[in-house]
């Protein structure tokens, strides 16, 4: 099967390409990028090869396949919230050709057996690729190292106790040393949760008005600083997950200036909403780290602009409607994001804050480089994973049309401008609205 993507604007930050080119895909690989590719269309009459599928991409952006390096797919253990199949379907619809799935399943992905199970399940879907992230500690309990080497062999591409940050600094140090040896990045959810009585919303003027217990910005900042120090000590690659405070952005910026191996990601909700969104107690606004102040939002945007923040990731966290219909304090934290991430991020482009090349790099080559996976470029010979974007595609976020099994999004009813109109993995079109 061959595909010829014609007339699109190809933007591949990994190769520094931004021009109108055709993309020819043969046998699941990128065969050629070129102006006005004719070869597959002008075959001799006796040529046995079937005619290629032509995708007319005029007016669209043709980008390397997008990678969301922070999602929760809930399988095994919480299939009522999401399964690997529904999560990958949501990813495909959102324009993602690959995702990295966090380890907080039941059982936790802390053994090669669970890693292999997840990969088997994903392979059966034949859609968006899944890169498993392994737990740092057994059961995410923060007490002893999980089977890091075994999971590495089984296919994990990073280490994280996301959601249950490693509070014991000695264990955090050992994890970094071990992670460096295996060449695996440490993806750190930075939060000293002992600093907050409970983890409900940002502690500030809105939490005061709503009478809800707060999570301090300082709880994130002190942990970012600790982990940067440990990264400097151990030489490990620290990736700071879902940066939510202005100070954390600045700490990462300064660490990079010093040459410490640190990268960072931001989530669309953290550069789109502030804690004001919590007024009215919509539990779909409950997320950890929480929605913070307008100053924090501005600092995250600045960090995205100047490259301090390398990656945009959704922290897709499905929860069942019955869980979200509890009171705000009792409801679980997290929101889905795979199907709104691109549309929300394109707001930064439409507002003139990021160039398309900058934006696309944060979904492609940069997350691929953090995880060390061969992904995120249209280089000839690489796997044909492609995301085609219509920058002006108008869509409303509606629960009924979301592929995710859960609908816990604070963006329901929002009108977004721009979306993926085709998602191609290994030369197969796995999603399209052309």
């Amino acid at each position: 099967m061959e595909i010829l993507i014609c007339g699109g604007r190809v933007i591949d930050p990994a190769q520094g390409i931004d021009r109108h080119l055709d993309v020819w895909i043969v046998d699941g690989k990128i065969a050629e990028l070129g102006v006005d590719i004719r070869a597959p269309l002008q075959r001799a009459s006796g040529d046995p090869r079937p005619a290629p599928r032509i995708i007319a991409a005029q007016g669209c952006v043709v980008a390397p396949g997008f990678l969301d390096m922070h999602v929760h797919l809930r399988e095994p253990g919480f299939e009522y919230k999401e399964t690997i199949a529904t999560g990958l379907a949501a990813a495909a619809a959102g324009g993602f050709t690959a995702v990295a799935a966090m380890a907080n399943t039941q059982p936790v992905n802390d053994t090669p057996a669970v890693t292999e199970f997840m990969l088997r399940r994903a392979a059966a879907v034949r859609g968006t690729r899944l890169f498993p992230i392994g737990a740092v500690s057994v059961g995410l309990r923060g007490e002893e190292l999980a089977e890091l080497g075994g999971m590495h062999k089984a296919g994990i591409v990073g280490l994280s106790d996301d959601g249950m940050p490693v509070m014991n600094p000695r264990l955090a140090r050992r994890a970094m040393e071990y992670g460096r040896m295996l060449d695996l990045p440490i993806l750190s959810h930075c939060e000293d949760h002992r600093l907050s009585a409970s983890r409900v919303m940002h502690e500030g003027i809105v939490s005061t008005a709503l009478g809800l217990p707060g999570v301090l910005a300082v709880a994130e900042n002190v942990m970012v600083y600790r982990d940067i120090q440990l990264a400097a000590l151990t030489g490990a690659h620290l990736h700071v997950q879902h940066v939510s405070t202005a100070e954390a952005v600045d700490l990462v910026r300064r660490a990079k200036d010093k040459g410490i191996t640190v990268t960072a990601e931001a989530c669309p909700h953290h550069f789109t909403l502030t804690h004001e969104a919590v007024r009215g107690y919509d539990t779909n606004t409950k997320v950890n780290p929480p929605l913070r102040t307008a100053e924090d939002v501005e600092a995250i945007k600045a960090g995205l602009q100047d490259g301090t923040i390398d990656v945009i990731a959704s922290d897709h966290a499905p929860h069942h409607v019955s869980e979200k219909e509890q009171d705000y304090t009792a409801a679980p934290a997290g929101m889905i994001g795979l199907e709104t991430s691109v549309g929300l991020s394109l707001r930064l482009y439409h507002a003139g804050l990021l160039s398309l090349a900058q934006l696309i790099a944060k979904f492609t080559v940069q997350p691929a480089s953090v995880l060390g996976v061969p992904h995120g470029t249209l280089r000839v010979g690489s796997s044909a994973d492609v995301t085609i974007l219509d920058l002006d595609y108008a869509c409303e976020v509606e629960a009924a049309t979301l592929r995710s099994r859960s609908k816990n999004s604070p963006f329901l009813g929002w009108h977004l401008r721009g979306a993926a109109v085709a998602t191609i993995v290994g030369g197969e079109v796995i999603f399209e609205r052309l």
Partner: protein
Amino acid sequence: MNPIDFRGRDLLGIEDLTADEIRYILDAVPPFKEISERDIKKVPTLRGKTIINLFFEPSTRTRTSFEIAGKRLSADVINISVATSSVSKGETLRDTAENLHAMQADALVVRHSAAGVPHLLARFLPSPVINAGDGAHEHPTQALLDLYTLQDKLGTLAGHTVLLVGDIAASRVARSNILAMQKLDMHVCVCGPRTMLPMGIEQMGIEYTSDFDDAIQGADAVMMLRIQRERHGEVLFPSLQEYAERYCLSAERLRRAKSGVLVMHPGPMNRGVEIAPEVADGLASVILEQVTNGVAVRMALLYLLLGGN
């Protein structure tokens, strides 16, 4: 003032009320207060209406006050007490609301230890929901009865200074009162240990001092708050003795205040901790009048929301 139609509305917090609406409610209270002073304390105003008191948190004063208020207006009042547990949360809250609606309840009075629960119930219940205290968020009827008591005693509200003392961060009474008093152009000061001060309160235009002896001098009324230890989950002060030394309203401290100062407390009181017994029972205390006015204010509210005639 033009009549304001409250029929069918929820009362989830003072935040949702305008200054005019607060004044309108306060002005509606006196005839209902008079009913309670009669020998036969009952009028047929809400006959045939069903009011449900749904209390997820223990309460004596507020629940009884609502019950008496409803009964004096001839409504049928049903009390439901639910022990708060993880089991009684979740979808049960929505189910509870929808079941009560299915039984044609005309109003729901709800108290819960978590902020926002009345808002959640109101989304599923078309009839009025009255917040009788949600976590550390709001307790709007308490603020209304406090304002009524202040107005009754001071003649006017605007320009007068109220000092709230103690556990501000955990207090829904403080939040509702601060909002209500600011809307009616009163001057609000808060006093207490820094550990009990919610983040960002200075941005709300409120004066704070940790020095009670200093703060009490300018106050027209002093409202003492109970230490909400059940909400803390941590220790916010070294010892009760030290707390009382700094923040108990003693007779000696009260002497530093203006003459005619009012002493208030939303109850329940911890005598000897935040208020000395002789002050609670003293001439400046209007604590029991707050309780009496509470019934009248709640009668007025039920009348306005349920559209009695």
